[in-house]
């Protein structure tokens, strides 16, 4: 599904280059559930953002669904991730002004999905996530776990092939975290959605099919479970 070849990312400060990622090679297949681990500052988020095309590598070649991402223009790149990738954040990043329903609906608006179809899709996912009763509430009226649930529902609404989750359980207690992990596992198994998550929790990492350990901008180890 995606492939990174000799990907590097560095920041120059005062003439010196600080490498955040250093010649990383990574291939992820359709249907995988990858957990990325590593100490703080090791470049996990950077790697995830490059995969998600929110960030661009300083060097290297990147392919997504056989498209050479490093050769694409901004517009094409954003069209590519708009259609295929859903993002889940540690801080949920729901839009405060919008209700649960509207938050989930937003990606569809940006893809110009017809109103009737939008309604059906949102109703369907609210039902699946058991949050129909909460649809008119605003984010601040929800618990952290519920907010993350909405965040995931929003990431899934446009039926992405790939979910990128940066420490999705980082702000949650362990019980809420478990529920989210179960959800990812179910999505991965039953719907065949590819999942790549960053996590600090050894336990949560075990939900996946592969664990990648990052250290100083390099892949230290890659363990298939």
């Amino acid at each position, binding site marked *: 599904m995606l492939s990174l070849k000799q990907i590097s990312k560095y920041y120059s400060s005062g003439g010196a280059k600080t490498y955040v990622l250093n010649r990383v090679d990574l291939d992820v297949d359709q249907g995988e559930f990858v957990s990325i681990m590593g100490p703080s500052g090791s470049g996990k988020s950077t790697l995830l953002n490059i995969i998600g095309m929110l960030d661009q590598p300083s060097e290297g070649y990147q392919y997504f669904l056989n498209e050479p991402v490093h050769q694409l223009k901004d517009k094409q790149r954003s069209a590519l991730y708009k259609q295929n990738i859903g993002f889940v954040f540690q801080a949920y*990043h729901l*839009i405060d002004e919008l209700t649960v329903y509207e938050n989930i609906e937003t990606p569809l608006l*940006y893809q110009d999905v017809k109103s009737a179809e939008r309604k059906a899709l949102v109703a369907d996912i609210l039902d699946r996530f058991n949050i129909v009763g909460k649809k008119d509430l605003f984010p601040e009226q929800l618990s952290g776990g519920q907010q993350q649930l909405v965040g995931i529902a929003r990431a899934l609404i446009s039926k992405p092939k790939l979910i990128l989750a940066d420490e999705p359980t980082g702000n949650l207690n362990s019980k809420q975290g478990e529920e989210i992990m179960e959800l990812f596992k179910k999505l991965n198994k039953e719907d065949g959605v590819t999942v790549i998550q960053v996590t600090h929790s050894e336990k949560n990492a075990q939900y996946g099919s592969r664990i990648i350990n990052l250290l100083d901008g390099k892949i230290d180890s890659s363990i298939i479970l």
Partner: protein
Amino acid sequence: MFKNHLKIAFRSLWRNRAFSAINMFGLILGFTVFIFIAEYVAYEWNANRFHQNFNQLSRLSFLYKTGESNYYLPPGLGPTLKSNVPGIKQVVRIGENVGSGVLSINTGASKNVFREERVSFVDGQFLKVFTFPVLQGNGLLNEPQTMALSKTTAIKYFGNVNAVGKVIQVNNQFGNTDYTVTSVYQDMPQNSDIQADVLLSYKTLESAALRNGNDWADPTGLGSEYSYLYILTNENANLSQISAQATNLWHKLKPDSKNDHVGLQPFQNLHIAPGFSYQFQTYGSLLLLIAFLSVAMLIIVIAWVNYINLSTAQALNRAREVGVRKVLGASRGQLTLQYLTETFVLTTISLGVAMLMVLMLQAAYNSFLEKQLSLAVLNAGWFWLGGATLIISGTLLAGGYVSWVLSSFNPLKTIRSKAFLKVGGLSLRRGLVVFQFVTSIIFIIATIVLYEQLQYMQNQDLGMKVEQRLAVTGPSIINSSQRDNSIAFENEVRQLPFVKQLSASNNIPGQGYNFSTAGITKSNANPGDDKKSYAMLIVDDQFFKTYDINIKYGTGFTLPMLAHGWTKTKKVVLNEAAVRQLGYNDNNAIIGQKIKWNNDFEIVGVVKDYHHLGLHEQIKPMIFLPAVADGFFTLKMETANMSTKMEQIRSLYQKNFPGEPFSYSFLDEVYDKQYKTEYQLGKIFIAAAFTAVLIACMGLLGLAMFAARRRIKEIGIRKILGANVFSLVNLISADFLKLVVVALVVASPIAWYIMHRWLEGFAYRITMQWWMFASAGLMALFIAFATVSIQAIKAAVSNPVKSLRSE
């Protein structure tokens, strides 16, 4: 999608209601001031435009070699022009207010009398040519002793507009004449430069009997110049050709006028000149109009600048939302549209509230300007369209910039952490604040200078006294016993214990002269001396004493000089300016000299120069003529318990002048009225300065809020390290106060230049002082400091632990 944008716009405006309120406040203020000024501008621009023949009308004038122009022409020129110059369809003469006096209506049982000032003699086609709508009657005044009334006047006299056929006796300088009403016309619009409540037919004055000895008023005469002449030309007439032919004709009629030129002023330019240094006089002021327009534009630009400032400062709070939306797939165009919608909502609400404000404050504004303005005056020409275009394009520009800033955020950075976020254009925002303060300071300086000048004019030694002087208007009805009545009235009033002095004169200070004339020289005149003009005033023996005007040489007039009138006595008093213009030496030897004005007139006295009219003008050379005058009676008196005193004077007046309305004014008020424009301008500048400063402070407040939030971590750390509140307030405020100082430096020379030009319009004026600039700067600094320090103190006293944790 738009519905969605709209919904979100409302929600986020509500969510950030403090910010939205501040933001809207600026816009509302800006729009309100803008609309008010636009009303005034539209009103001025529309002056006279209701005439259907607007494009074919012109006013005639004499242009002299000296560059001066004169709009009072001999009425006899009118008919001659029409028959001799091709291209002229109609000539209409207006003897403006020449017929003012008392109108009496016999209602059978009693006689109702009304004093009317705006009574003009006009030609028969007047109403037709100027297309004043006629409500009743045929609209013609071709016959002698016919008249037309305005609607309001007709209702005042008869209770309704059905006045045609009624007979009214008019008592004015031409005696008592009966006139028959032929027409009632719609009241002349307030922004018409031609105004009259009563129109009398010019034809009437062709009869010598009906002129009552005032042969100067003969409509066929070429001697005295007292009539306005308007011409109606063909559609595409060549005005310069007509003007040349009219000039030729005039030279033929009056061989000694070879140097005069007959000018044609198109009606379009009667109210507002088409440019500066226009050779003809106008009723309105282009300068004032442009000043108003500039103020309006500046205020509205300040409001938008404020919007930009506040919104971009607030953008920091919106950054995360922008980032999330981008990650969710929003394109930049979609985001721009969303934030533009917000601007649109904000602007629309502000505009709506501004309209309400205008409706609510309209009455106050009107009474202040003494004009009938309303939103409806905008409904003319391109004003709606122009105003709407301006507001929409300004909104698009301001909103567009804000949207552009917002939508340019890098999503990755915004969702990661606020610490990485730099909201661009900080220097731009500083520039905008400087701009706001430059404008505010200019307004403040302008206000200070203006009021200093007004103050100066009021405190200027006029060379005479106007306080505690009451001017009673003399009788208008002319009859054989009038002179005796006036003398009796004067004597009786002098008996009143509170009256210290009394003088009768035919005009008074602050009001005008009796006439101006050339052709006066000393006995051995230099060539050209006879072209110099003198202002003539007819007064009695008490005039100088009553007004405390100092006599420099000789004496004033004496009672015997009055008795025979100036035409027989042949004595004059001069002011110093007249002495200089005549070419005499300024010493006592002048007494007894004779000046030539057809006959010889003996100089019996010289008075010190005094400001007969306001300080706009240089003191004119004046010549006083003695007579038993009765135009005005000036009473020098104690003004305490005025109402009982007034009753006593009134009863004496009515006893001696039965049937005459009693009217009076206080001289100091009459005098102050001359500065009405300056007072209005002053008030407008105060309002503008106030608005500009207020809006600028809003901008500053926004910036300070932003800065305080941006530096909250720094403040927290400094506090933990032991900084006190004062030093923290300093830290934040200093930045902004620097901006105000920069603004003062930029504003001062601009303000100096503008006000210097303005002051040049006064013959007697102040010089600008450094303290005027300094106090404007101090005022701005103080206001800015007050605004900023509130935010700074709030930030400085906040709990550092809390602010650090939330980062």
